[in-house]
């Protein structure tokens, strides 16, 4: 338990049309990845306000990966709106001294299993290096 805590939890917002089945495909292939990942099925990640992301970090979530459908979203215009929002979240994260690499916007397709694993692994490496949210040295914040 303690080790997992130190690793920090990773929240994955997986869009229903592509990334969620993509994660399922990784499961069908028994492609192992770290267990501190929690996938939430969402219709479109554009639903979440800026504050949602900040609150997650306040609650102790160490990293968030938004696995969207990219421009292939069934909701026309949703990806562009989401990308603009994430830019604003980055600005707010910088203000709070949170390393913006803790939040990542990606596009994952229904068979993008390797991309899925890679994203999880990269975030896992990052959160184990950074520690819990809020612990980053002020200088590192906003890097990348």
């Amino acid at each position, binding site marked *: *338990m303690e080790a*997992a805590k130190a690793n920090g*939890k990773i*929240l994955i917002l997986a869009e229903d049309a592509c990334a*969620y*089945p993509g*994660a*399922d495909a*990784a*499961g*069908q292939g*028994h*492609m*192992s*990845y*770290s*267990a*501190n*990942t*929690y*996938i*939430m*099925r*969402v*219709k*479109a990640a*554009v*639903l*979440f*306000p*800026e504050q*949602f992301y900040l*609150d*997650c970090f306040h*609650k*102790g*979530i160490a990293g968030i990966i938004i696995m969207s459908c990219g421009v292939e979203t069934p*909701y*026309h*215009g*949703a990806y562009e*709106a989401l990308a603009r*929002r994430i830019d604003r979240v980055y600005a707010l994260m910088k203000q709070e001294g949170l390393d913006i690499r803790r939040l990542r916007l990606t596009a994952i397709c229904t068979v993008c299993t390797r991309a899925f694993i890679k994203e999880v692994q990269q975030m896992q490496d990052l959160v184990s290096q950074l520690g819990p949210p809020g612990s980053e040295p002020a200088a590192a914040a906003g890097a990348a």
Partner: protein
Amino acid sequence: MAKKKKPEPKTEPTTGGKVGVYVCHCGGNISDAVDVEQVCAQARKIPGVVVARDNMFMCSDPGQEMIIEDLKSGLVDRVVVASCSPSLHETTFRSALARAGANPYVYEQANLREQVSWVHHGPAATSKASRLVAAAAAKAGQLKPLAPLRVEVQPRAAVIGGGVAGLKSALELAQRGQEVILLEKSPFLGGQVAQLDRLAPLGETAARIIGELAAAVLQHPAIKVYTCVQVEGFEGYIGNFKLKVIRRPPGGGEYAAQLSTLSQSGQGLGEFVPFVGLMPASIPETQEDIHLEAGVIILATGMRPYGPRTGEYGYQKFPQVVTLPEFIRLLAAAPPGDTLALEGRPIRGAALIHCVGSRQIPGVHEENEGGYLNEYCSRTCCGASLYAANLLRENYPQTRIFDFYRDIRTYGRGQEELYTQAAHNQAVFFRFEAGEEPQVLENPDPQGPPLLVRVQDVLTFGEEIEVPVDLVVLAVGQEPNPVADLVEKMKIPVAADRFLQEVHPKLRPVEVAVAGIFLAGACQAPFDVGETCAAAGAAAVKAAAILSRGYVELDPFVAEVDLSKCQGAGACVEACLADGALTMVELEVGGQKVKRAQVNPVLCIGCGACVAVCPENAINVQGWTLKQFESMVDMVVSDEYLEGA
């Protein structure tokens, strides 16, 4: 026809908070990696969970029975199944809820197989499983019963355009038992196909194709045809469209040429006249407003041939340069003989130039008069040109054909044979590169034919060749008919190529962004007649599904405004991605007039773009509320239920 009765979902509010958790072993697939008993024990400590049970196969009848019994006995009123991915069994368990008399939407699935037991091992797997169950239970506790939205449908289709696409789709629907209104701008049915003679590659005549289709349309009692009409007003949504149509005599000498051909032909109403079409009714003498209601609309507004610029390949500069449709007409009127003679002038050599007004490349080709380039391939011209070439060679063996092309695109069934046949008929081919188009010049030799076509021929490794000819035929491409007014009213997206834009070429190829409106034929892209009829059938079948059911059932996952919270900020309206789904309306609250957001659930796509921008969280997508997600995150980070179980 076998009809399955769908049980009406119950929507009266249930008491809430009594969550049952059902954990599946999946025959070891889950239980080999996850301690199912511990997951159940921990689940019982989650607030709101009243029971947690496990089963070897939750999807089996005994597994489903377990849930049904608990629902029926009143023990639980919310269900979480922790098993495989919802993509496999969400529908299974939702229908189990419905069988128990519960609302199918008070259900949440935790994915313990694809996203836990198959990818994680050791104690971490069980702990993650418990957290996912807790998150699902937290969401389930807040789920409300939902009912799919049902929109009644006006039992009628409006088809706009009386060409081959409009005729075909109207006929299909009528023969399927649906009522159809067919609207045509001109006085004639038949569209562009009526302007042709024999069609590539098999030689069916336009007269027969249009004659047959139009006759069947006019004879069908379920189809009402209006000619000389223009759509002036449009409102409504899927199931309930309202059209204001004006029927009036064509003004300013419009259609004068066709009308005079018609009167010279001696043919009457309802009879096909070559290069005119078929006039079903006389021209109205006065203007008349017609109000129509339709459940669905099919757009079949068609195409028109590209009109070359003055001077383009000598068009309108030399009288011997004509477009392919013009040539087809001339050919139909030409007398028989060894050599083709047009208006008394013998044609010993004719040049055919492909890709006129098609495949234009930015930076290489000159823009057209409207300031655009037709970058697309028009698909039909290669086949049509070669068909005309063969016809010419076979009927007038002394007339030679010189064919100037970039790529020969005889892709369709029976078309490659046209190409082979043209070679066999000794048509002479020259190939040119984009930007190295052949030049049409006056022949300096007064003894020779009037024109000279000069080309750098790829087939002879770039040699410059001059071919003296009596006639130049331009294989002009297709352009969409100018229907900007109409599509603006209907808010239909137009692609960069100016054709109407489908939602997705494979997922929804005949649908547009506005639900209930479908595309048929060449208004969407260049097509030949067979392809147009296929597209018309595809549009008709989508319309038939809506009309034959009589109602549209829409996903209940749409936005909902909480009027107790809404302050009328209006940010949601601005953020909305579906035109018209959110509006500000005036309401009376406590004796005061205030502005509040209102959702049109028929138009809402449920993306949640509005949710993110509401400062009060007064708007949410039903079944996927922000609060539910927040609670899920709370459960993911909480350790309370994990300890001491």
